[in-house]
């Protein structure tokens, strides 16, 4: 990056976002686990069952947000763990872009399958 326009220090942004996504994920991950292991048993999951859940707009949006925040939180966590281990210089740049690309692919794929599930409820 040639110039850094925001006065928001880089380290500070990702630190804060990690905490914000953490607070969100605490609730949503617990909810997800609860819904899919206790309310519904994982063994009883079917395409139609999932599609029914996804048909509800609020649930769908929550799941997409869940995907995005979890991806950011997890990948950012991995990136910082590597920096703490001493990753620097060229290696750091490479790892950063690999992680960015992996995250993008994951989010795209996740949204695609969310849409697939949503559109799957028969008329």
């Amino acid at each position, binding site marked *: 990056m040639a110039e850094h326009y925001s006065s928001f220090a880089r380290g500070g942004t990702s630190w804060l976002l990690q905490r914000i996504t953490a607070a969100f994920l605490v609730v949503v991950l617990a909810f997800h686990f609860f819904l899919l292991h206790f309310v519904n048993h994982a063994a009883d999951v079917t395409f139609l069952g999932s599609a029914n859940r996804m048909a509800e707009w609020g649930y769908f949006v929550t799941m997409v947000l869940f995907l995005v925040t979890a991806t950011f939180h*997890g990948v950012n966590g991995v990136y910082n763990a590597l920096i703490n281990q001493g990753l620097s210089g060229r290696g750091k740049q490479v790892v950063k872009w690999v992680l960015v690309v*992996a995250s993008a692919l994951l989010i795209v794929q996740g949204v695609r399958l969310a849409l697939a599930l949503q559109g799957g409820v028969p008329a």
Partner: protein
Amino acid sequence: MSRASKGYDRGVIEDFGRWREFSAGMWAWIFHKFTGWVLVGYLFTHIAVLSTALTAQSADPATLQAGEDTFTQTIQTLEGQALVRVLEVGLLAVAVFHILNGIRLLLIDLGVGLEAQDRSFYASLILTGAIVIASVPTFVEGAF
């Protein structure tokens, strides 16, 4: 004093050989990192498995109704394996610890409970254990 050599690098001293000397805060850090890596790995795997929905969506309604589509079949085959059920309990343990210790860290970041930080770590460990043990029956139901 002139020194020709730079000095002797003893390497990482606090390696796992000295685990008995680790403090609570250090265990918390180690476990949080470890559970974090597991969860990230699982996230990618999970999306991959769920991607069978993409092929399933084009199946005809009758197949879907009968639960014969690839999505349903994949998941139910997996859930039929006892090993998968055991791994799921492990996943629960990992996720619950990461959540509980994560809450502890969020509180620390807000400046709450710094004096009790080691006790809050032990509390999250115990609570994780309790939740996991309580959940085992539900998780392994039907697979053994």
